[in-house]
């Protein structure tokens, strides 16, 4: 082969030169450790412990925060209505479980359908709810319907170039609509009381299942953000006009990631309903959506692990402080948000990472030296042998 073809071949094989591995070894080790610790909670704490219940809940919240992280941290879409998908997933599964439970445990009138329907004057299970008797079908609906809904919302919103603040407010409105809808149509949804009183599956197997789904979501998230698609998403986040001019169909990418996030939220919601045993309109409303955004922001917006840290940290703090400082624990929470936004805009994990990077890199002179050394290495790899002498600096 002549020189230029050889250069081309070297170039091609070196295209992935700077590619970092999908998951570095240390991440796998740490991740496995954390999973092992959480997985052993049922044995350490006993199956009735409320900490176990909390852990399962927090894992569902982690997935929820992760989905928000994907669309906000990596793609720049601030959706204040992500709870819509979580809520629909949760309600569908809860309804199915409740209907099944009611069939075995008749109400005070002896009817075999949910008590809230009876209170509201129904005499039999509504026809359109009968398919929900089959729980697998309900789970499938719980995963698919929110995704389809997200697709519709996405098409309407992103094709019309609604983004930024307006997108935030519209999604807020959507969450509010769902919340009002749930409260109003209490015949079918249990209304203000929510759906309570059905069998839930707290226990080791289900916890491991939730854990497995969480890990899977993290892997999906990592694969997504670490690939070419992820780079495009980040470029959309940074400057969507520029991305559009580069030829990428920004709206399609946004819709895609929005649907992925909705799917994850729906999965989280479905597991949440089965784990906790209570769903209410709060799980589908704007306040919960904003909370998810806050967990992501506090944990670390453009990092995936930040979702985990943020959700766990804040919910755990909330639980502890509302017992220890029952009167004014919210002061701390409010102050925490402000501090995080002002001084740690990348969140806890993000700021930690930045700080480490700065420490490692050192002064400007050291940075410049390192950059030069790297450029020299690159030059040497790309250039045919013999054209660059060792010791020469690259331009």
């Amino acid at each position, binding site marked *: 082969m002549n020189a230029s073809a050889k250069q081309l071949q070297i170039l091609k094989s070196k295209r992935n030169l700077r590619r970092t591995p999908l998951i570095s070894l240390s991440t796998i080790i*740490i991740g496995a450790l954390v999973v092992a610790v959480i997985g052993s909670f049922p044995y350490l704490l006993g199956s009735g412990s*409320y900490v176990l219940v909390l852990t399962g809940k927090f894992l569902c919240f982690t997935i929820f925060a992760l989905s928000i992280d994907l669309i906000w941290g990596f793609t720049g879409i601030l959706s204040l209505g992500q709870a819509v998908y979580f809520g629909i997933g949760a309600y569908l599964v809860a309804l199915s479980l409740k209907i099944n439970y009611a069939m075995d445990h008749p109400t005070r009138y002896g009817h075999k359908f949910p008590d809230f329907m009876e209170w509201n004057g129904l005499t039999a299970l509504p026809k359109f709810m009968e398919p929900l008797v089959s729980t697998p079908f309900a789970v499938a609906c719980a995963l698919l319907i929110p995704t389809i809904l997200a697709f519709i919302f996405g098409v309407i919103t992103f094709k019309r170039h609604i983004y930024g603040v307006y997108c935030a407010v519209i999604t807020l409105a959507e969450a509010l609509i769902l919340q009002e809808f749930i409260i109003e149509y209490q015949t079918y949804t249990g209304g*203000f*009381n*929510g759906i309570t009183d059905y069998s839930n599956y707290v226990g080791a197997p289900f916890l491991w299942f939730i854990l497995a789904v969480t890990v899977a979501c993290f892997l999906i998230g990592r694969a997504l953000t670490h690939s070419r698609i992820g780079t495009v998403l980040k470029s959309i986040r940074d400057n969507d006009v520029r991305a559009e001019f580069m030829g990428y169909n920004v709206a399609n990418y946004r819709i895609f990631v929005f649907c992925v996030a909705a799917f994850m939220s729906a999965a989280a919601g479905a597991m949440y309903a089965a784990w906790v045993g209570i769903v*209410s309109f709060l799980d589908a409303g704007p306040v919960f959506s904003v909370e998810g955004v806050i967990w992501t922001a506090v944990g670390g917006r453009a990092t995936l692990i930040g979702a985990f840290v943020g959700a766990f940290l804040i919910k755990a703090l909330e639980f502890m402080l*509302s017992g220890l400082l029952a*009167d004014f624990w919210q002061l701390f929470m409010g102050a925490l948000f402000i501090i995080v936004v002002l001084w740690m805009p990348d969140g806890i994990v993000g700021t930690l990472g930045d700080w480490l990077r700065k420490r490692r890199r050192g002064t400007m002179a050291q940075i410049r030296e390192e950059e030069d050394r790297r450029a020299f290495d690159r030059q040497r790899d790309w250039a045919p042998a013999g054209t660059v002498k060792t010791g020469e600096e690259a331009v």
Partner: protein
Amino acid sequence: MGTGIKRRTLLKGAAAGAGLTLTTGPYHFVRNIAKAAEGDTIKVGILHSLSGTIAIIETSLHNAELLAIDEINAKGGVLGKKLEPVVEDTQSMVQVFADKAKKLLLDDKVAAVLGCYTSASRQSVLPIFEQYNGVLIYPTLYEAQECSKNCFYTGAVPNQQLDDFIPWIIKTLGRKKFYMVGSNYIYPKETNREVKALLAKHGGQNVGEEYAPLGHTEFSTIINNISGSGADVVFSDLVGDSVVAFYKQYKQFGITANDIPICTPITTEQETAAMGPENAVGHLTSFNYFQSVDTPENKSFVERYKAKYGKNQVTNAVMEAAYFSTYFLAQALAKVKSTDADALIFEGLPGQEFNAPGGPVKIDEKNHHTWLWPRIGKARPDGQFDIVWKSEQRIRPDPWTKYLYPHKSCDFTDKRVLERLKKPWSQEKNRSGTIDI
């Protein structure tokens, strides 16, 4: 690319691990220090919302319970030990109620829990109390049709509020055409159902029924509808912010209590104080207790409450129930000389009597609800209520409203129920005291 990123991810992982440990570590450490002093106190759980929308009223329950505990401790406590309140803020969220209830029962190992306000919160924690055999004392008026082994209900049930109220409105006040306005959730809807049954029984007429979203504050349309329906009395089960807005706008549209009075089972002194005297005057509320009840016990109670929480505070029926519930608990503990749940449930609490500010009250031995004194109050210009009717006798609670469920009753002394309760707890929910008669 090797070492640098490795350290970074290592520390990220450490942050995650730290977050995880924070979930359990220091918290248990602090709590364990508290537990060390366990021997000399009896723990009582206080499970109310101190933040969020329901905190508006639920804080007064929490305050009343703490006042009672202070008084009991000042007199030497129970069985020589002081009562220690373990306070949890449930943030007006149903899910948090369930978690905190578990924590109180399993972690803090409280003797009993005084808690809950909304029916939603009670329903979410009852399964936990049934599963772990705890004791919940629920001081709020509610729509009844329930009785659980692990719950003692010290608030009014419909037959102690509506059964006398509706006939009084029809006969004594002479108003027959009812327009019902409520907040859009289960308690008003159930209550209105009971009212309709009573109307049919006593010759009243239902000329309209409307529901407003919770927290809704714009009532001009509803008031217009009321005016056009020919009603001569409004029965309102609005709750929360809606109450004040409704009464204010009602008056602004020129309708006074002489034209169409508003009758409600839920507007308390707090709301009348908040809506202003000119808007409240003349309207009627049915409760078993008002701040203006003229007994020495009540006068002293109100004084003590104001001394502890501020001159501007008002008392109301629900927190009065919370107050005497605490005394019931203390007396029960003293009677059975232990904190064992079954002892409290079967021997300690049933039959307890106490001279409450609203009159002498008693826990019914059979159905675990409370004998109360229904009253009807008419709002005065100063925000307090003139008691225009008082029941001659203490009224027995009927957890299963007779005219809606005549074939059901609640009896924890019935052998069928005792058989059922002997079985271990299962998802079958066999902790109810309901029997068919």
